């Protein structure tokens, strides 16, 4: 399906689209050229663990092919080796910030399609047994009506495996909205027997500090996973 309007700015896609229909291998596109041009793919040298571009990083924060953050995580015996590698697609620039906020905070689900083709290209190169979305709390899931990481997986035509969940306490509906918002967030396993010796690929929308993904990786590794990698749409 080719859309006539840009999914983000709603501008007309123009003649390009109708022409593209004649060619079978025409790439489906959901963003207009001027929106597309504002996305910056991560290229060049990156940290071998977290995918942070090393180019613009001050050399004092680089150790070999790792960034200083990752070195610190790996020096800590509690976190060492849990997250094998992260891959990210785009730089988290202002445009992507707006796009992602429209997508997840406004709940504009269809924007997941704008990334599908590129995500698919990336995921094909990664070997894994389970593709696992970072879960949302029940409150967030209700608020948004969908899990943004899960939607990214579904829109490339894959089936997410729900190995994790956020720990939640008493029945949510008993609380007022304000109370519902402030619940501590920790992960727990939901299908422990499935994890042993499996290669897990975690999916999240943004890698910022890496702490969410490392928490998830840790609990999966402790349950006997063979390896945990991650993929995020954006690298902050």
């Amino acid at each position: 399906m080719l859309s006539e309007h840009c999914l983000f700015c709603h501008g007309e896609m123009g003649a390009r689209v109708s022409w593209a229909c004649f060619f079978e291998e025409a790439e489906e596109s959901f963003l207009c050229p001027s929106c597309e041009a504002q996305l910056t793919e991560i290229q060049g040298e990156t940290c071998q663990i977290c995918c942070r571009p090393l180019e613009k990083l001050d050399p004092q924060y680089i150790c070999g092919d790792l960034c200083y953050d990752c070195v610190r995580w790996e020096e800590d015996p509690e976190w060492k080796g849990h997250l094998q590698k992260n891959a990210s697609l785009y730089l988290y620039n202002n445009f992507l910030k707006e796009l992602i906020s429209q997508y997840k905070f406004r709940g504009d689900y269809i924007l997941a399609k704008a990334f599908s083709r590129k995500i698919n290209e990336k995921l094909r190169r990664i070997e894994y047994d389970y593709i696992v979305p970072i879960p949302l709390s029940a409150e967030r899931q209700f608020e948004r009506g969908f899990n943004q990481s899960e939607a990214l997986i579904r829109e490339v035509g894959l089936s997410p495996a729900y190995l994790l969940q956020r720990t939640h306490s008493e029945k949510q509906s008993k609380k007022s909205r304000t109370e519902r918002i402030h619940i501590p967030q920790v992960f727990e396993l939901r299908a422990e027997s499935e994890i042993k010796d499996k290669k897990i690929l975690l999916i999240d929308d943004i890698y910022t500090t890496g702490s969410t993904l490392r928490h998830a990786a840790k609990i999966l590794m402790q349950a006997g996973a063979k390896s945990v990698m991650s993929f995020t749409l954006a690298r902050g």
Partner: protein
Amino acid sequence: MSNDSSNQISIIIEVFLLRFALIDNKLVPEPLLVKSTPTKPITQHDVIPQPPQNPSYSFNHDLQDLLKGKQLLLDDIPNSIQEIQAHYENGYLLLRKGITFRKNKPKCERCGNEAPSWFAVFPCSRCRESCIYCRKCIMMGRVSSCTLLYSWIENEHIDAQPFESPLLSWTGTLSPGQQTASAQVVEAIQGNKEYLVWAVCGAGKTEVLFEGIHYALLQGKRVCIATPRTDVVLELTPRLQAVFPTIQVASLYGGSEDRHKNAQLTITTTHQLLRFYHAFDTMILDEVDAFPYSVEEALQHAVKQARKTTSSMIYLTATPNSQWQKECRLGKRDFVTIPARYHRHPLPVPHFVWCGNWHKSLKQDRLPRNVMQWLQERIESGKQALFFIPKIDLIPKILPILKQLHPNIEAVHAEDPQRKEKVQAMRSKELLILVTTTILERGVTFPNLDVAILGSEDRIFTESALVQIAGRVGRSVQFPSGDITFFHFGKTEAMIKARNQIIAMNKEALEKGLIDVE
């Protein structure tokens, strides 16, 4: 990889689900069911039963303040769903479906959107179904097919509390043209009628509303002034608050704080109007002409929803669209004109000057000779000017050419982060000429100004845009005239209509003795 095992572990996450059971002719949401009962998403309940009001129920006044005259989403209501449900069961809440279907085609009940390209579908974890949502008004919270719009059911008799002492604190005087219009507005508000005030740029249309608003407020009526632009909301709020010092004024625009204030006088952007439902006894819609034709339908929907069934409707405009002008001519629309400015000088009439294929000149980094000459004259006399251009992408071409003439020339457009600073620099006379897209067609006034348009044949320059642009000139009493030139590569109907409209207004003003002959 194989998906078999991952399917086995794809358990749906438990959240509180927005599915409803029908019990004793009341809808009960799934999380509040005492015993297990089959539930359906709201789309599959044909009607939403409306329980009768229980007068002895002690309702929550905060909830009343929040929902009175509004149509809000569950997400906008801080109360627990038990409390919300209790108010519904006791007949205090009106629940409406956010998306309705006619012949399987969705319509957003909040914003009126019916265009298929503005809807999308997602697997919704609220209702566990495929949910259709409206992308058009998503900035105000997503309305999807499982969404309900919540309103307060008002008891009209208790509601209106008339005032006895005057509320109006204004000592200015109205021009004869304003006086006529003001009296008509009062009459329209008294009779709950629809009325159009057609006032030329600089006529002073806001003052014309004071008496009418005062009358409505004295009756305990709720009044709304809606305008397409945030700037206008920001400008009108302190002005009206000063005129009605004892009245609560709510000021609503994207990101404003007053969102849920249940005030007697509401000043809002038309966008924020979407949160209201049967709220106002008097609705005033400013700058009707500022809306592109495509937006008009959505606007009509918003206005209709926000008005009470019995209410008055005042439209303000400097230039009605041709349909409305025709209705005025044929006597099908009640209207009054204020054909003259407050300062009793006629409106400057635009000159049409043919400037050839200016696109071609620009390709050779030149502007047509007569355009250059016009600019040169302003530079020599030191008179400030606005130079309108049809498209933002012309700026990098045109600005360097003009900068060679004089350094104090800048360009501004809608997304310009320095827009405010540049307009300010124009005010303080640091700038001599400001190149602009149509964003400065309304609102801003500079006292002593000439105006030119390059390429007035472009279709962005509609009749109303051209009248507005011409209306920038001669606004102050000290400098009541000025030059307005449309440089064109072929006259358009819009240009001719705009000039005729201005000439007709001047003629009418002269006949009515509203301007002085020079």
